[in-house]
């Protein structure tokens, strides 16, 4: 009976996520605390209105949308690892694909949460549902975003759960089902980020965003941030579990990041040239960002930090000696993640609105409430990913599978962290 089998699987997953090593408990507890704080902050925001943020008419999109934009890039890139996985014939491909998809799911959950906390009437979210509400598709790019983001979330969840559930049942996932979906996830990943870029791009009122270069820059910087996170994740996973990931795979991803960052920097250079050389009124936002404008220069230290981080990371990834040294590699990953977070987050969303359409400069900096809510959402995403990993890794290493009766789950190892070199036949039934 499939219901009993699914129920057995589900109960097994609950057992898994509820147990783990001390480090696991500490990590999850911390995340839950942060989520709780974020939730309280959000309740405060709901009760008092968005006025508790620093957003005002002049800068109507702020920290929440900055995070959203950055995370759409992470979500896109996580799945794009599938391409080199297939092209370079990495083993284990399905492991890498599943890990990437789960990151995409977590990032998507965060994106949807950021949008939810940003809109003024979350109680009216149902207005976005086609047929029940009114979705202004295809005219509104936000409507497109709603469609593609949800498709992407469902797609990744479907593939990941399908693969994992089949592995749990100790059978190969049906390639006739997975391959087309995996292949479809590639244009889907490109689509979510292109649509998000277009939603800024299509606004003629905001010359900083109304540049054709925006969509390519989005994709280029996305290819930097997501894979950087994955590189660190791969190292953690192969250290603490039995999943093997070759050095070559990690170094190849780092090399691809280098090329992406090169494109990103080149496109940035093109933007800078165009604005500074033509020297029109539209230079103002870029000047505000890079140099400050009329005494307002809050963003300048941040963007230059991001620039330095990005360029340094670029060289760290480009030069084989630093790329293949795990210390410098990891430094590079952290630098690039932060650099792209700044550049594509506040460094994109704020200058688009400063100076505003009537020439006014309002310097936006997020309030405490915005920071707490954001922290809560990041914690939620990390928790989602943690729980997904907590279930996926044992399945992938064959330590969580269906028992002989075809229904009860068998868990060989209830500890989340297990050193790969101590893999004796230590196992105990729950």
């Amino acid at each position, binding site marked *: 009976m499939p219901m009993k089998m699914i129920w057995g699987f589900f109960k097994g997953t609950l057992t898994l996520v509820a147990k783990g090593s001390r480090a696991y408990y500490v990590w999850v507890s911390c995340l839950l605390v942060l989520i709780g704080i974020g939730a309280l902050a959000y309740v405060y925001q709901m009760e008092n209105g968005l*006025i508790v943020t620093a957003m*005002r008419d002049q800068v109507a999109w702020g920290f929440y949308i900055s995070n959203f934009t950055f995370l759409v890039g992470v979500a896109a890139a996580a799945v794009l690892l599938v391409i080199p996985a297939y092209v370079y014939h990495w083993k284990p491909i399905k492991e890498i694909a599943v890990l990437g998809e789960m990151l995409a799911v977590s990032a998507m959950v965060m994106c949807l949460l950021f949008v939810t906390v940003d809109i003024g009437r979350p109680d009216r979210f149902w207005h976005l549902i086609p047929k029940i509400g009114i979705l202004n598709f295809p005219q509104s790019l936000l409507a497109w975003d709603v469609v593609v983001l949800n498709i992407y979330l469902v797609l990744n969840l479907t593939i990941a759960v399908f693969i994992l559930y089949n592995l749990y049942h100790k059978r190969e996932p049906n390639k006739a089902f997975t391959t087309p979906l995996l292949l479809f996830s590639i244009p889907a990943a490109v689509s979510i980020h292109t649509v998000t870029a277009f939603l800024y791009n299509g606004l003629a009122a905001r010359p900083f965003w109304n540049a054709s270069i925006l969509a390519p820059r989005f994709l280029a910087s996305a290819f930097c941030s997501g894979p950087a996170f994955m590189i660190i994740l791969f190292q953690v996973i192969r250290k603490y579990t039995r999943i093997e990931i070759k050095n070559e795979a990690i170094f190849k991803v780092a090399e691809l990041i280098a090329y992406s960052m090169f494109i990103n920097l080149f496109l940035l250079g093109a933007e800078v040239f165009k604005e500074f050389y033509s020297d029109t009124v539209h230079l103002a936002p870029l000047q505000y960002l890079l140099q400050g404008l009329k005494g307002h220069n809050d963003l300048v230290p941040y963007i230059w930090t991001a620039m330095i981080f990005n360029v340094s990371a670029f060289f760290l990834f480009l030069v084989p000696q630093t790329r293949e040294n795990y210390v410098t590699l990891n430094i590079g990953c952290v630098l690039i993640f932060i650099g792209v977070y700044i550049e594509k987050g506040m460094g994109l969303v704020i200058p688009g609105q400063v100076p505003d359409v009537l020439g006014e400069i309002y310097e936006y900096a997020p309030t405490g409430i915005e920071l707490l809510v954001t922290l809560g959402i990041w914690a939620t995403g990390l928790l989602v990913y943690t729980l997904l990993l907590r279930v996926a890794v044992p399945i992938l290493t064959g330590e969580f599978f269906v028992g002989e009766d075809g229904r009860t789950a068998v868990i060989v190892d209830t500890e989340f962290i297990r050193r790969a070199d101590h893999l004796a036949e230590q196992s105990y039934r729950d």
Partner: protein
Amino acid sequence: MNRDRSRHRLVPGIAVLAVCLAAGVASSAPPQGRGNATKPHAGQGPEKQFAVPTPPFTPGIFPCSECHKEMKPNPARRELKDEHTNIVLNHAQGQRWCLDCHDISNRDRLRLVSGEKIGFDESFRLCGQCHGDKYRDWKVGVHGKRTGMWNGEKQYLLCVHCHNPHDPGFKPLVPMSPPTRPENVK
């Protein structure tokens, strides 16, 4: 032969054109019931009547003839020392003085350049002599404060309801408060 054929086409063509022109002229008459706005055209016949509110006289000053019918008019250009000393003429004072606009024999009337005497309720005709562009605009409702109904009867004010005829320039006003800066919106 060719010329014959072209003349054949020419005559009915001219007739059609004439009919069109006639129709065009007939239809260009102003539509009825749209208020008092007319297409302005210079000096053709008597001016249309504009319903205006009472002129903004200083209380008690009108009718002027109450004082002036006993007085002998003095046409000499001078600065007034006995009465009306509160009026400082700041309006083409190099070119004119009081009796260029106020009728010397009947102070309840204003005087146009043509010699025609008009009432204070038609003072726009006087102003319009020099300020023709404003006058044309005012007649169609484009000059001046606009009140009433945008698709109903137009309400007109006299020029002098806003402009002091002796010192017509608007004085600066105290501005109302600036908007709250966004950082101060709590």
